[in-house]
């Protein structure tokens, strides 16, 4: 039942009862399906999408770092990636199919300096890491399918039909 995943992906705060009504299933069925997803690791967690810019706590910065590494015999990129994504500062880590670099690492930090130091002291010095390129995010327009902007209002004219 992909529909339940789609619903939770959009809004993980829907209750089991609400999802049951929305999908025309019983609450028990919905609980069962979600439990199964959780056990199988299909649902890996529940998070909240936050637009930090609208808070008083937006004093941190996000950076996208391209990392070029040498794959290791028998291990491929796994071992190097693991050494990188285990840092708390790393929020996301992807293996890319790109000629220029191999891993995309997303890092959060308090300042450009902090992120810069993290890259030079923790990432760049890793064995098998050949080089890094750091790009700082200035503004997030859209994240996880949600556009960050003023709340939309219903501006449909009242018309009779």
């Amino acid at each position, binding site marked *: 039942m992909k529909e339940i995943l789609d619903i939770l992906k959009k809004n993980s705060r829907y209750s089991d009862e609400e999802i049951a009504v929305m*999908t025309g299933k019983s609450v028990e069925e919905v609980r069962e399906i979600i439990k199964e997803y959780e056990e199988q690791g299909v649902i890996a967690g529940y998070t909240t999408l936050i637009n930090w810019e609208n808070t008083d706590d937006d004093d941190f910065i996000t950076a996208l770092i391209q990392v070029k590494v040498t794959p290791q015999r028998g291990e491929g990129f796994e071992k190097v990636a693991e050494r990188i994504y285990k840092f708390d500062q790393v929020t996301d880590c992807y293996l890319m199919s790109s000629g220029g670099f191999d891993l995309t690492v997303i890092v959060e930090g308090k300042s450009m300096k902090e992120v810069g130091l993290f890259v030079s002291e923790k990432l760049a010095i890793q064995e098998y890491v050949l080089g890094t390129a750091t790009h700082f995010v200035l503004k997030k327009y859209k994240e996880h399918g949600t556009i960050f902007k003023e709340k939309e209002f*219903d501006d449909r004219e009242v018309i009779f039909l």
Partner: protein
Amino acid sequence: MRVEEMIKNNVQNMPPSGIRRFFDLVHEMEDVISLGVGEPDFITPWNVREAGIYSLEKGHTHYSSNAGFMELRYEISRYLNRRFNLKYKPENEVLVTVGGSEAIDLALRALVGPGDEVIIPEPSFVAYQGCTAFTGATAKTIQLKAENEFKLTAQELEAAITPRTKVLIMSFPNNPTGAIMTREDLAPIVDVLKDRDIFILSDEIYAELSYQENHVSIATFDEVFEKTLVVNGFSKAYAMTGWRLGYACGHPTLIAAMTKIHQYAIMCSPTTAQYAAIEALKSGDYAVQAMVTEYNQRRRVLLDGFRKLGLECFEPLGAFYVFPCIKSTGLSSDEFCERLLMAEKVLVVPGNAFGQSGEGFIRACYASSMENIKESLVRIERFLNTLEQ
């Protein structure tokens, strides 16, 4: 000169829509949740909007041929075949119109006049009555019944037919009831009509919004294919109401007659909208599916909500309306809607606005965000509780 006396009788006599006053009230109020507007709350998918913008940038600002761009008619033909198993030749069986509404007007103008009768099952879209009246023909209504889930039955149809009947208007999935007609429901209707010289004007504008199984067009019955005019459009399926683009498909002779009127009255449908519509048909099935899935979820929430509030309600399987019965409150449809609006600022439409058999019902449209739907249910519950005291 007294201008009132100069206005043609059948226009003069047509009452303006009965619920205008609600809408005038709404304009003066803030924080109204509207379940009243019969149009998608979704915005036209970006790729479709972008195609329209691009056509303007390229300077495609001229007329198209009267019947619409050949490429668009070709895509409409392919789409109807792909989705509903209908076969129409783009060359002479498809006419692109200014919304489905123009297609309805053209068809009635091409087919009926004084002395003719048009059968209109109600409750239904108000334009059928208006467009019929303006031709001078007589509207003969069938008051559909709640116990039949507002489907048309062969007996009701048979009883309404006279020697002067020329057109039957079918509108399923239905506005305002959300009723649909399945293949089994349609078969007896086809039997009644197959040997009679009566045209079927099948308004299928809500065809994509069918929640149980795929929409069945009455034109897929070979016995009545030639005498059926299918009207559809982009407004509901692709959330393109403001673009004003629809189409009619049917017998080449009827399409030619309608094209003649269209050519003199309108020239051609707006070309920017036509370019956007081509993109919609070429790429839009996924976007339509996503919207339908979401409507379906909201439909279940609103239906479940009304039932939990103790309002009797059959399950509407099409369009985006729920049509609960409010007779248990002791109020008329008009009273219910006006008092709900004043007390709780929720706008729903009285069922009798769509025909007398809609009295005792209200139309609530779920083309509104889930938050709005949930909040309106909370407010309606509060309103119902005040009635009981």
